[in-house]
């Protein structure tokens, strides 16, 4: 992304962010609450602009194309997103939840849908737990299962990039560990960007980590380097827990 700034009404949330995301790798974004992590990630699939009065400037390049020059709908199909709180569609069954992205975009072929649901649930490591109850409501699952259902739903449309906005912050440690294992598997096929305020999580899953503070990227580096030999004193004081 190149010189991306985003506003909520008059309020500037992120300022001239320049950041590269490596393909088939996990990029972590860390920083204290309110530093603009979520805003940044929402700019990457044009979700920021769904908020009234929100505004974005700058370029986000995907395979050399600026996503702000493409239709928002097709951008979001190529760049999937998982939210902080699991948000399965409450009126739909597990099957319908996963199939929703395809079905509501016009896919009717039952065989293709079945295959996509099967593949996505397997990829999201949820298949074994739900294979006998696909017609149950998505809301009947546990929090961790719901989040994996949301991941499966995002994967079903075959995106190239998967954005995760604090995907584990509403989950217990066991569910978190499952999602982290999943992230590890997913990077074989997808490019992942994960926002987290849990530094250990970034250290565990991300190859590259960016530290944000007050709407700016302070430092980006190989995760190990960033945590062991931070170049900026601000980064150092954050990761050593002196603020944030």
């Amino acid at each position, binding site marked *: 992304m190149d010189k991306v700034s985003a506003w909520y009404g008059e309020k500037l949330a992120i300022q001239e962010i320049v950041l590269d995301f490596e393909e088939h790798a996990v990029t972590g974004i860390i920083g204290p609450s309110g530093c603009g992590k979520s805003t940044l990630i929402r700019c990457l699939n044009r979700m920021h602009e*769904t908020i009234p009065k929100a505004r974005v400037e700058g370029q986000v390049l995907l395979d050399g194309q600026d996503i702000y020059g493409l239709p928002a709908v097709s951008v979001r199909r190529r760049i999937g997103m998982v939210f902080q709180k699991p948000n399965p569609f409450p009126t739909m069954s597990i099957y319908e939840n996963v199939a929703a992205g395809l079905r509501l*975009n016009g896919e009717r072929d039952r065989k293709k849908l079945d295959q996509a649901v099967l593949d996505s649930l397997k990829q999201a490591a949820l298949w074994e737990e739900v294979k006998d109850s696909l017609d149950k409501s998505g809301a009947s699952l546990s929090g961790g299962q719901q989040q994996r259902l949301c991941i499966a739903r995002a994967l079903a449309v075959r995106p190239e990039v998967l954005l995760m906005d604090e995907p584990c912050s509403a989950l217990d440690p066991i569910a978190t560990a499952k999602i982290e294992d999943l992230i590890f598997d997913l990077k074989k096929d997808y490019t992942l960007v994960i926002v987290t305020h849990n530094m250990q999580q970034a250290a565990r899953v991300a190859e590259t980590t960016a530290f944000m503070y007050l709407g700016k990227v302070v430092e980006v580096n190989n995760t190990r380097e960033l945590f062991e030999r931070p170049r900026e004193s601000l980064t150092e004081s954050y990761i050593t827990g002196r603020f944030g």
Partner: protein
Amino acid sequence: MKFPVDRDTRRRWFDVFMSGAALVCVGLALLPLGSILMEAFVRGAPALTPNFLTQPSLLGGIANAIQGTFILIGLTSLVALPVGILTGIYLSEFGKGRIGVVVRFFVDVMTQTPSVVVGIFAYSFVLTLALSGLVPRTLVFSVISGTIALSTIMIPIVARTSEDALRLVPTSAREAALALGIPRYRTILRVVLPSCASALVTGGLLGIARIGGETAPLLLTLGSSREFFSGLDQPIAAMPTQVYQFAIAPSLAENQAAWGASLILVLLMLGISIASRAVIRLRAVKR
């Protein structure tokens, strides 16, 4: 300070007292409803003969009024449900700016307009059109005229209840759908609307219940008919106006018929409400 009874006991007594008070209030609220039903039953039941229920008012029955009420409810719903729900969607999903504020204000004003005013509006509206030759004169007192009046009453009710219903759907559900690359309109139609279907139905029912009992606007727009439906541009009878006509008639038999018709009207509304709730429940079980 020392109390004669300890705190827990006082709290328990207070709880009993408040529960009792709440129960008494429920009783008070139900009293008028109960007495209306009672009165309608006691006074109306003797009027309910097979003849009364199957013959048009020309032959001393109310079948034509029942038919008329169903036709009016049907036609009005046909107009007011789509328009009202679409207005609700606009207000909840798009109407964030100044236009939204203005529309919401007018919807609110319309909800509170006395129905007799709406009746005069519909009457003079159709009359003006008829006098200028744009529509046939027969339309002034007709099914269409009545539908216009009732729609004007029902649209704002449906709009407001569906706006509220849609607002209760969490943003996260909309975001989840948008993030999958689902277009906005399809997100609303396939994700947001189904999530609040039962609230929408309740809103529609509220509207139907309201117009089903409206009398004043119908007195001004329906004209009078003592026979069955004979065309959209013709006068028609309806239950509330029939009750009115029976009630002001100078004969004891007709006064009793007014009670009979009232009873049927109340049961009709009750039936519509119960039936549509049952439909929702059936759909919910299927999921």
